[in-house]
């Protein structure tokens, strides 16, 4: 019965995530209104047939802003996950291949070091040095994805290294590098995809948090977190300004998490069996 739930998770999650992905893509070609156009005479309109989600304090269409904001969120989160994968996975593979060496120790200790820093603080410091902006938000979020993937990769790779087929490859004369690339990596791809989905959703949350405190994408590019920040003083008389971007974040993150959970159960037969 549970596998039914999990398959449902996968489907609901995929649908939710796709809606926002689609909104982001469509926003490149079409939005109901131009989000850079201010129309102060039409500010703070309630949701209705003309403006589906109403307008903000500059008279911009909130529906259009959420579409374009999806673009910002998704782009920042994807690149941040990409940084984590491209740097973290090789580090993790190397640490596992030469386990207990100085390299392993160095990699794992630097991981601990990054983990020890409060993430938001690093982001604040990065933007204090380089100024706020989407690129620096990506870097700040990306840095914290590196140790996540490095640890995960190392752990999974370590257990693979003891398996027979790796032993076979070693006796066949393959070196640690080739084994890592040809045998270890393909076997942990599923794991990485699942973790990637989770980090992706965390990245969306982190981007929202950073732009909420003003450290994300700069105006006039809309971002969900900044929309929330700007709506804050108006929440008591124009709650729609805060509700719609908030729902957008919640639904996207929820969708990605459900999708990730569903994927994990799909990939991991052990779990599936156990849940039966």
């Amino acid at each position: 019965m549970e596998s039914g739930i999990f398959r449902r998770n996968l489907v609901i999650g995929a649908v939710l995530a796709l809606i926002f992905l689609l909104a982001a893509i469509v926003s490149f070609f079409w939005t109901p209104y131009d989000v850079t156009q201010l129309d102060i005479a039409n500010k703070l309109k309630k949701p209705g047939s003309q403006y589906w989600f109403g307008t903000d304090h500059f008279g911009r269409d909130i529906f259009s802003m959420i579409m374009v904001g999806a673009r910002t969120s998704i782009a920042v989160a994807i690149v941040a996950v990409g940084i984590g994968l491209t740097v973290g996975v090789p580090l993790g593979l190397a640490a596992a291949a030469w386990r207990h060496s100085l390299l392993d120790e160095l990699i794992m200790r630097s991981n601990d070091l990054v983990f020890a820093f409060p993430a938001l603080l690093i982001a604040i410091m990065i933007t204090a040095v380089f100024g706020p902006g989407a690129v620096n938000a990506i870097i700040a979020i990306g840095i914290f994805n590196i140790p996540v993937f490095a640890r995960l990769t190392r752990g999974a790779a370590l257990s693979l290294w003891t398996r027979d087929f790796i032993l076979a490859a070693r006796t066949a004369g393959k070196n640690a590098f080739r084994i890592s690339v040809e045998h270890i990596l393909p076997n942990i791809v599923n794991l990485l995809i699942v973790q990637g989905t989770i980090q992706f959703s965390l990245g969306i949350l982190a981007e929202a948090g950073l732009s909420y405190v003003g450290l994300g994408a700069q105006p006039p590019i809309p971002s969900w977190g900044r929309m929330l920040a700007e709506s804050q003083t108006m929440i008591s008389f124009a709650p729609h300004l805060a509700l719609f971007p908030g729902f957008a974040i919640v639904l996207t993150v929820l969708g990605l998490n459900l999708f990730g959970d569903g994927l994990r159960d799909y990939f991991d037969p052990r779990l599936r069996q156990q849940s039966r």
Partner: protein
Amino acid sequence: MLRFVLKRLLSLVATLAVASVVIFIAIEVVPGDPASYMLGLNAEPDTVQALRDELGLNASKITRYFQWVGGMVHGDFGTSYTYRTPVSAMIADRIGISLPLALYALLLSTVIAFPAGIIAATRRGSVADVSIMGATQLGVAIPNFWFAMLLVLFFSIQLRWFSAGGFPGWDEGFFAGVKALTLPAVALALPQASILARVMRSSLLDTLGEDFIRTARAKGLTTRQTLWRHALRNALIPVLTIIGLQFSFLLAGAIIIENVFFLPGLGRLIFQAISQRDLIVVESVVMLLVFAVVLVTFLVDVAYAVADPRLRAQR
């Protein structure tokens, strides 16, 4: 065992040393000068120089690093550039809010997560399980600052049950303090409780599937007895690890929530200090937070090693 602890202790000290260098360098390259920030638009250059001299900012970077680290070892964090009061006193004041807030949030999240996780695990697949898991999915998806905004809108502005923020100080009474921390703690606890409940559930499910539980059942213990006597205790280890990590996260991660509720905690102190370029405060607080995380990790490692000797060998 002792060797293991010593080894971990050594690595703790090394981590801290490296962290202090990283922090110092990172903060020194931050553009902006505390003296010119304090003196504002009309200040003349020689006035700024005079203030820099007074603050000791004109000393060499290496001297200042060693002064800072040397002071910290003796518990002296230096003097704030902007406030001109000892940093240690400022930090102590702020911890008086951040620490109770973190503990409060942790308490709330545990009180919610334990029963939720246990119910979900023991009635796996039931309506209760599905709805608890659904709720936790929602809980981790809601940005806590947004949740905090909604809490203020509803409980402070509409119902006026709680004040919208601020902290009266513990000398106004224990209850007043706890009341002021309630909404922020709820906002902080929501995602934590969701994560904890999920960990609790899966950890319990794992142990319930293990051999010794089957043995216990075979010995004639009831489900309830098995749960309380055996499964829960064993399931608790990963849960405690998460709680440990959450605690250090809560101590530092409350920055945004402290801003929403204008609580004078550590997070707000850092935010303010960075914008005022009160570098010595930033350095010291970040160092303190890193120390907290490293210490918790160390304690968790040691606890693991005590619980499971195999890990010692592995490390």
